[in-house]
């Protein structure tokens, strides 16, 4: 194992994990093993899905951390540059009763300008977009795992609930438009 690359190690654990979940799945499928209507059987039957999701979460976590690292790198670099600018300006601040206030104003102005420039930049927008995207993928896999658990207790999945929401929305829209049309017709009638 020591001489193998991280990719090979990752694949090794991936296959090992899937092998055991396959075994558990096969064992739980035996009618004598568990009651066919109990939650454990339904859960075990889908446990391979959970393993696959966990492996994918692991891979996405690596990419997420990469973008998170870049995010903090951008913030740190901007902070350092802004602080250098403040240090250069600091000797110009008159030493009087207003000194602290004047220094604070310079500090805030320079930091706001530099950070706004960063947040406005292509490199920040691109990395931030990818960071959010990876976070969403993590959420998606978490949702998929939750769906396995929900199905094991005969509850609807997120997709099934979304279908119901979509149908309700469509019905409400149709009823709303018909009501509005009726009201407009009634108003026209009354004004005549």
């Amino acid at each position, binding site marked *: 194992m020591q001489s193998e690359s991280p990719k090979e190690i990752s694949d090794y654990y991936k296959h090992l994990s899937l092998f055991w979940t396959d075994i558990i799945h096969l064992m739980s499928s035996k009618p004598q093993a568990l009651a066919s209507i109990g939650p454990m059987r339904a859960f075990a039957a889908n446990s391979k899905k959970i393993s696959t999701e966990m492996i994918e979460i692991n891979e996405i976590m690596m990419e997420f951390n990469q973008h998170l690292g870049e995010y903090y790198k951008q913030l740190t670099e901007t902070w350092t540059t802004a602080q250098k600018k403040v240090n250069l300006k600091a000797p110009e601040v008159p030493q009087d009763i207003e000194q602290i206030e004047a220094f604070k104003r310079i500090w805030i102005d320079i930091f706001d300008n530099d*950070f706004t420039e960063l947040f406005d930049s292509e490199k920040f927008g691109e990395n931030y*977009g990818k960071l959010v*995207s990876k976070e*969403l993928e993590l959420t998606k896999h978490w949702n998929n795992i939750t769906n396995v658990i929900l199905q094991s207790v005969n509850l609807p999945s997120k997709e099934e609930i*979304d279908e119901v*929401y979509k149908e309700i*929305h469509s019905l409400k*829209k149709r009823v*709303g438009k018909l009501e509005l049309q009726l009201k407009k017709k009634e108003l026209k009638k009354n004004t005549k």
Partner: protein
Amino acid sequence: MLISYALINRFHILDIHPEKSWVRNLLEQGFDVYMLDWGTPTSMDKYLDFDDYVNGYLDTYVEYVKNESSNDKITLQGYCTGATIATAYTSLHPESVKNYIATAPVIDGWRDTTVISNLAKHMDVDKMVQIIGNMPPEFMYYCFSVLKPFEQGIEKYVNFFKNIDNKRFVDNFLRVEKWLGDTPPIPGELFRQWIKDIYQDNLLIQNKMYIEGEHVDLKKIDMPIFTQVAVGDHLVSPECSMPLHYAIGSEDKTLRMYPTGHVGMIASGLSQKKVLPELGEWLAERS
């Protein structure tokens, strides 16, 4: 007059303090004012889209106000993102709008120079809506926190503690803070269309936007229109709002620029002394 408030935070900023109230000022000038509360979308509302807001909610409210005031047409005001909805409405239902007031409208996403626009352009909005549904308030708080982070995150609170003995200051500060911390989620489908059609593809100003198959043609906005823009607006830059003035079909159009910010334009001393009197004068001539 019906006010179509933004989708972010709540409408009561327009009546947040008796001395800074947009609504009170207009009432004192003799105008009847109605305000629209978009409510709080739940997970069930994730499929609400532009059509629901423009041809559903706003159209229903306009009909209500027309009925209440016994008028065929009303004056419509839109603020920020509420102005985008009101602009689309005015284009699709010009027969119901007598005058249109666009206050810091979000119109030209490509010209917008704010941080919000940069974040929006790089957003995988399809993935976002598919996975999380409605846009959570926490995500919007993050977007706002990167706007002038040190002025808003430090200086504002330093000032608060400096004025902690000033009852009037603390009262005003807490009213605005409470308002800032209260924003509803944005329905997923509406958010998707918003980011794509306004910020990423910029369809509205190019006259290429469609709502449920209906063309949102800005040339159809031919009634008197008053556009208000804040020079120091860091949420909706003047470059994003001003193109509306040049794109519409109306011949009676006025563009005013004010030396203030996004919220300063609607709830400040300047709005009471300058913005509202000018609006009232313009409106009185056309009412």
